[in-house]
């Protein structure tokens, strides 16, 4: 992973602030730059703002101040810009959020047809390829409720990939899964990372962070406490708080 070639900066986040209406400060003067094909893992205690950071990247949460630019497009109030970013940034949720009234195939076809304006046949072709990629071809006609959690999450990943996004966001994608299903989802995520997808991953899976991340960010109270390569991060953390957190989570 070390000799991976990175491109230019695809996401720049500069001095963003976000305070929720209940007064909780989620992000405070947060800055980070992410390069093309980079896999960034965000870790931190709960309530540290890592999910909020992720949700700001595609505009699911609005920022109070600062600037976010994704692939040259500023994420602002301009609807067209926002739509462009939503198309280019895929997201995978903790609770999968598949559409329960549609088959797996239709879940993955939907945005291709409605947003990318593909024909049903074209969309289905890509859907079947993606289902092969996430190892679940036999479930194309099943409804989400008929799938296990791991299968649902793999379908959710396929659904996001169907938009051919330039960036993929993973918001605790394995946290709601039974332990025996975490592996199959992580495997898909690792494959994506190896293929050069730009990924921002909020997770508690330290094994994943160590194995595939190019950069690890440790957050607390809406700020970056420490950032570094996985090697540096797990073997030689500089900050006391990082050490305490890693001790807690790794033992």
């Amino acid at each position, binding site marked *: 992973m070390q000799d991976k070639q990175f491109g230019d900066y695809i996401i720049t986040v500069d001095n963003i602030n976000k305070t929720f209406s209940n007064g909780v400060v989620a992000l405070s003067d947060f800055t980070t730059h992410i390069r093309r094909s980079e896999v960034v893992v965000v870790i931190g205690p709960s309530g540290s703002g890592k999910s909020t950071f992720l949700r700001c990247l*595609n*505009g*699911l949460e609005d920022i109070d101040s600062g600037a976010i630019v994704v692939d040259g497009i500023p994420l602002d109030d301009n609807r067209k810009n926002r*739509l462009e970013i*939503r*198309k280019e*940034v*895929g*997201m995978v*949720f903790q*609770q999968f*959020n*598949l*559409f*329960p*009234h*549609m088959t797996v195939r239709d879940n993955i076809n*939907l*945005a291709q047809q*409605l*947003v990318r304006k593909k024909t049903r046949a074209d969309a289905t072709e890509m859907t079947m390829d993606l289902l092969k990629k996430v190892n679940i071809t036999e479930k194309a006609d099943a*409804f989400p*409720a008929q799938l296990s959690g791991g299968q649902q999450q793999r379908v*959710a990943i396929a*659904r*996001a990939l169907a*938009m051919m996004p330039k960036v993929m*966001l993973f918001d605790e994608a394995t946290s709601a899964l039974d332990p025996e299903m975490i592996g199959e989802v992580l495997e898909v995520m690792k494959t994506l990372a190896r293929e050069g997808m730009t990924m921002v991953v909020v997770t508690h899976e330290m094994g994943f962070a160590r194995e595939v991340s190019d950069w690890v960010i440790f957050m607390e109270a809406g700020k970056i406490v420490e950032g570094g390569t996985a090697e540096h991060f797990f073997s030689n953390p500089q900050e006391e708080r990082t050490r305490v957190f890693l001790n807690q989570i790794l033992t």
Partner: protein
Amino acid sequence: MNSLSQKKRKTIRFFHIHSTFIDILKYLAVIFAMVWLISSGTQKLGYNWQWYRVPKYIYTFKDGRLGAGPLIHGLMVTFQVSGISLLLSFAIGLIAALFRLSDSLAARLLARCYLETIRNTPLMVQLFFIYFVLGPVLDIDRFLSAVLALSIFEGAYASEIFRAGIISIQKGQWEAAYSLGLSPVDTYRRIILPQAIRRILPPLTSQGISLIKDSALVSIIAVYDLTMQGQVIISETFLTFELWFTIAAIYLAITVTLSVLVNFLEDHLRVLG
């Protein structure tokens, strides 16, 4: 030990059968009491039942051909008024619900005013207002006035049902649709409403049944629906009880049919997902 428990079980079974038997007896007793009450009541009234005169108001038999009597003509009008109003009221209800949930303050305010005004005034007053005040201004006839009043009235209730259904859909569904780049219209059309409709089918059915029954009120502006036809016949024949019972039975038949149809639809939708 064993014999005791067996005895116990027998006793339980005896009581079980016994209680079912008692239930049936109670039920029959209630029915009997009601029949007795009505028959003795009408006897005391000295009411002269003349059911044989009713059929000719339902159907006619002229020159060897079966024709519709005034009650069936009225029923057709009731169908027309209720059918059109049902569609219109759901459309109005959906639009009002979307307004209530929109980002625009003006839209929210408008929907709120509509809801509170309509829900807090009697349907009869609204009927009179539309027919006598708006009617001449907009040049609409009594049938259209009736449909408009019913649609607007029931639409207010339907809007609350739609709103409840829409906000019952998990936030994650909106977020998934958003992150896939779906437009708000597509999100509603393909993701939110299909799920919401399944959930609100039972209260929406109740609303539809209410509408059919409320449609009887249009007789006050002399729309010749089922109720109005009945009133006309009664005023000519004094067959008060016979006709009101007949009319009630016809309304019951329509609404029960609707309930059964929707139940069937519900089961079908549940299988789908």
